[in-house]
């Protein structure tokens, strides 16, 4: 069934809101120094770190978030409401406050972090692992909320059939539930990955900003942008790079289903 023309008009307007600012940004890029800005070793290091940490935290989001989404989708209406509200927490907090919360839990002076630090000398802040934790904290709600919506829409009929054919719960999960919610799963994963790639506030506060260890692209961009007297050129160049690499990866991820499921 085709969508009405006027609806498509609105869709184009919506797209414009999202894309035109980027076009505007391109007008400010200084192309002459672009190559130089992009190919510096520190830039590439930051990019690599961003990709690595975003991939790790997306994985963590999947591993922790899928079960959580499943539990919420199958819970009673009341319990689901409570759980959903809990999941919303990191979503609503400005990322900087999220960083603060993480510090107060896992920092060297944190409720959990202090005893660990005192006993072992290990702590999460200023480490790449810390970046992953911060990104996971910030990105997971996106996965959970998206997935829960799809799980609810897709229903359980096919799962019952699979169980009745002798599939244990693990098999039902991996061979039926997961493939059936694939579009939503991909959507959620993309959101989480994108959010992790763009994450700045919580990372800056929790993990710090140390080149090669915790300085991801957004931190590099912010640092470049905040550079005194330096024009915004390199910040813009870095943004462009971040954008392109994220889009390339997301496009690679597109194992979207070709046809509607039923």
């Amino acid at each position: 069934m085709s969508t009405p023309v006027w609806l498509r008009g609105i869709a184009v307007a919506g797209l414009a809101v999202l894309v035109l600012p980027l076009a505007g940004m391109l007008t400010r890029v200084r192309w002459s120094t672009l190559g130089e800005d992009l190919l510096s070793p520190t830039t590439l290091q930051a990019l690599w770190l961003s990709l690595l940490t975003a991939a790790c935290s997306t994985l963590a989001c999947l591993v922790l978030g899928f079960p959580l989404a499943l539990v919420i989708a199958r819970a009673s209406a009341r319990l689901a409401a409570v759980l959903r509200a809990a999941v919303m927490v990191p979503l609503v907090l400005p990322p900087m406050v999220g960083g603060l919360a993480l510090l107060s839990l896992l920092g060297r002076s944190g409720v959990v972090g202090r005893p660990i630090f005192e006993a072992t000398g290990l702590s999460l802040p200023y480490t790449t692992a810390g970046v992953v934790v911060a990104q996971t904290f910030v990105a997971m709600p996106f996965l959970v909320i998206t997935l829960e919506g799809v799980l609810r829409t897709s229903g359980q009929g096919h799962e019952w059939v699979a169980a009745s054919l002798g599939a244990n719960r693990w098999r039902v999960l991996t061979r039926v539930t997961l493939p059936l919610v694939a579009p939503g799963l991909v959507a959620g994963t993309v959101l989480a990955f994108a959010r992790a790639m763009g994450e700045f506030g919580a990372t800056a506060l929790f993990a710090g900003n140390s080149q090669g260890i915790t300085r991801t692209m957004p931190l590099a961009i912010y640092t470049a942008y905040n550079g005194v007297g330096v024009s915004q050129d390199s910040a813009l160049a870095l943004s462009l790079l971040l954008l392109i690499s994220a889009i390339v990866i997301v496009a690679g991820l597109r194992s979207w289903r070709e046809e509607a499921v039923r």
Partner: protein
Amino acid sequence: MSTGARGTGATDEGPRSGGTTHRGSGLSAQIEVERTAFTVRADLTLAPGQRLALLGANGAGKSTILGALAGTVPLSAGRISLGEAATERVLDAPGRRSVPAHRRAITLLEQRPLLFPHLDLVGNVAFGPRSRGSGRRASRDLALEWLERVDLTDHARQRPYRLSGGQQQRVALARAFAAGPSVILLDEPFAALDAETVPRVRGMLDRELTRTGTTAVLVTHQLSDAWDLADTCLVLEAGRVREQASPEHLVTAPRSRFGARLAGFGAIEGETSAQGLRVEGVLLPGRPDPGSPPRRGVRALGIASPTDVELLPGTADASLASVPGRVIGVRASAGRVLVEADNGLIADVTTQRATEVAGQGLPVVGSRLGFAPRSLRLVGLDVP
């Protein structure tokens, strides 16, 4: 009784691979499930390899019973157990955690095909064997074999959405059987199949059930399905069992209103007397059913074969022992023409000259005629 009298022989068409003959489990169930309008209550006992047909009107509770057995519908009371006394496994009972569906070895073929949209037909049919531990190769071969049996080999590598409704239903059937359950529950498995395919598939499944000794419960609206596949029939009305009989008995001498209709008999309600059934002041000739004879002077059902009902041009005529009826349907099958009346009777007019009856052509729906049953079989209204 174990396997049906009609479902014997013919092992020559058994699967070439697919393992040794297995025996189905016995099943015993006291089911109680709350539904919107009533509570479904049924006691079932099935010997290993026995085959039960559940018959009943829409919404009578047939699917509910299957769901309870499969573990997809929670019991509000009752108890379900698998196997004989010594090896009994309780699946559901008050105060126990119910055994999850995948550990019941009971496969339910639901009313909708519910094929897995993300798997091709082979993947769908191989799902059961794979789940029960067969190797990839063996499962695929078994799946292909089953697809051949339901005549879908050509579509083996297609996704379900590219199939017609009846083809999907056949895949679902193949999938359920390929899982090799010890109890199989079939919910209107032939409803979407074409007239030519039904007897063929039914025959194939009959042989398969016999070969493997699988216990089966079949829900159907077609008595011919029960006839071909089942040992025993249960007739449900509003969640309660109204009649239990062998298919032969149900076909020749049904004892409930729904059973009569299913078997193609007419049924009319009246008051019993010594000579028969008194309906609207007319005495219709009849004899009590030997199995469940009603007392004299009570409300009872008179059941008549269409060939025993004569159609008269006029309406009521006490001397001719005929009751009036408005024609609500004129049906033909296999060269016979049946006329159905709103009074519950059906008359076979194949041998009567149509012109004799209605003056011209066949009787017209809506016209009022006289229906004269030559002999009613009288049964009580309150069969348990």
